[in-house]
């Protein structure tokens, strides 16, 4: 009790100070300005940064990250989190390729893989919506399960190649003008998610549930089926990100499950300004967040900054984003009642 009594005036003081500094800027605007500033600095300071090809490469390098962030965004806006996304992405596609290697036809294998993906999304949603398990634990566990089960029972090695001439292989070679398919894929997924969230009834429900779950339930929104739907969507988007990864590398390596990718996805979502407490933000935030990461990584690579420092710089930016988020979207009575994700 004493803690909250002390904390409250202090928070108010900080918020006033912040709003004096930033005016009424949202986090999205701040990150956008930061990205713009970085972009201008890199354009002036780094040779070759501003070439069309490099700009395309930037968007392309964050496309898989961005697609995963779209799925994560939909889940987080509705108040939740999906920590199994990267495991689903890698394992479903590796399983798909493995089944073909074992001699199954492409369509049959695809049907199995998609079935598996939908099933996992469904189980995630069921655990969160009906069994009332906190999303962070439910999806953490299911992510481990997906990786462990698929890696031990279904996929026989880390790297599974795409058969030559397969549609996934051809997908990676598509260019529209000079622009590679990944850029369009990312834009399309983000645009479809935007249409869903903005213009469909179910999309609006996602915001209502994220903003105030109890009120949403009281007004008659089918909150449980809606929760299941979000995790199924997230799983399907993860599968599409996996297909895209395989198409650009001609193989998929399941080691990616053990990498920092999942944290990068959350970084993109949070940094773009989608609050972890739900109900806020949209696809614009995902795109802004992804672009900031893309510009930053590209500039750091051009500068030949080693991995360790790249991680340090990224983590500092994440910390700043989280602090700014908590100052701009302070915890109130309502969030306190709902608890954390």
């Amino acid at each position, binding site marked *: 009790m004493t803690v909250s009594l002390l904390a409250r005036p202090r928070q108010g003081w900080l918020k006033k100070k912040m709003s004096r500094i930033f005016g009424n800027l949202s986090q999205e605007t701040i990150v956008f300005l930061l990205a713009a500033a970085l972009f201008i600095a890199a354009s002036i300071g780094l040779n070759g940064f501003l070439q069309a090809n490099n700009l395309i490469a930037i968007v392309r390098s964050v496309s898989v990250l961005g697609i995963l962030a779209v799925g994560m965004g939909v889940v987080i806006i509705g108040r939740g989190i999906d920590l199994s996304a990267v495991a689903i992405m890698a394992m479903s596609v590796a399983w798909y390729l493995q089944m073909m290697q074992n001699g199954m036809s492409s369509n049959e294998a695809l049907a199995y893989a998609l079935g598996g993906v939908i099933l996992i999304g469904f189980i995630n949603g069921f655990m969160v919506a009906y069994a009332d398990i906190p999303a962070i634990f439910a999806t953490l566990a299911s992510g481990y399960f997906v990786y462990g089960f698929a890696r031990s029972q279904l996929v026989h090695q*880390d790297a599974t190649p795409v058969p030559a001439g397969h549609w996934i292989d051809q997908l990676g070679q598509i260019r529209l003008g000079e622009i590679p398919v990944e850029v369009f894929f990312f834009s399309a997924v983000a645009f479809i998610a935007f249409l869903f969230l903005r213009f469909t009834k179910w999309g609006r429900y996602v915001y209502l549930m994220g903003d105030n779950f109890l009120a949403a339930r009281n007004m008659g929104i089918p909150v449980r089926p809606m929760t299941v739907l979000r995790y199924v969507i997230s799983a399907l988007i993860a599968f599409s990100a996996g297909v895209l990864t395989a198409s650009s590398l*001609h193989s998929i390596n399941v080691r*990616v499950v053990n990498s920092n990718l999942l944290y990068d996805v959350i970084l993109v979502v949070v940094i773009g300004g989608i609050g972890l407490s739900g109900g806020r933000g949209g696809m614009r935030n995902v795109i802004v967040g992804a672009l900031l990461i893309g510009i930053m*990584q590209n500039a750091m690579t*051009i500068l030949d900054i080693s991995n360790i420092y790249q991680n340090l710089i990224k983590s500092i930016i994440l910390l700043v984003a989280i602090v700014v988020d908590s100052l701009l979207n302070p915890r109130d009575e309502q969030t306190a009642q709902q608890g954390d994700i």
Partner: protein
Amino acid sequence: MRLKQMLAAAAFTVLGALAIGQTAMADGDAGTQDPGAAPYAEAMKGKRVVLIPMAMGFDLAQGWAAYLKHEVEGWGGTFETRDPNWDVNAMAQAITDIISGDQKPDVLVIHSPDLNSMTKLLKKAQAEGIYVVLIDNPMNFAADAFVGSNWYHLGQLEAEAAVKACEGKSKQIGLVQGDAANASSIYQYNGIKQVLDQHPDFKIVAEPFSNWDPTTSRNVTTTMLQQNPDICAIIDFWDGDATGASAAIKDAKLDGKVALVTTGGGETVDCKALEDGTFYAVVMTELAGQSRDMNAVIKFLLQSGQKPGTSKTYIYTLEKATTKADLKPTSCWDVKQLQAGQF
């Protein structure tokens, strides 16, 4: 006189032969069996060998495991593996479990993730009477034996291949390093530097890290080629992520112009990539020879009678850079065949 001497000599010969015959008789097998066989069988019988690679999910580890299983079971020992799946903590846990369990192994074969992190555990294993054989990645720890590549030399071979590929071209070289902790990455880098220092006209224009991840390798290579379109060769530190670098080279429409040099286990994928021009040169690990070296040193240690931790031996595998020109049907090995028991 003469006759007397000859008779004496003959007598001695007969006596000597009798004496030898009698000693041999005492051994039981009357000279029909090699005297080494019995102590050998005695020393090797039921010995337990455990292989813990960084992960079981990649070609080299599967190759080592297949060979060692074949050999160890062949001489009457038991062979097991553990799979930490690239997780350093899981590896430490596996080693701890094994050396503190009831059934201690006789030999631990370890593929270390870095120069230092397993040192304490492996010292403990030696104190428990377990021989430690390091493979592939050396450590700052005196194991009973190291079997693997001399990564410094391997880097030199890669650099020489790159220098050759750059003849008459720009003399700009790009590196895609692994990480900053793994011995294979650090020594490989030093070896490359040493060769390129001898060619002052050559220049390393960028040296980003891939963290052994193909997507990262692809992104950093794209940027590298964007910034330095005249690069004539790229050295990627592992074939496992060089697929990313090769995709980036293809995207930049520079295939055929930029030579991609890498190193790998020499599984059939390496030969395919050399064949279709994806890789210009691969410094391959000669798996069969390397695995046989491991087996030989294990057999030696088990018979040596010396205490674990009292000696150290380094057995470096013969390496050579293979290009399309010197590809042979036997240049690569097939992990599926090995696992099916075809050696």
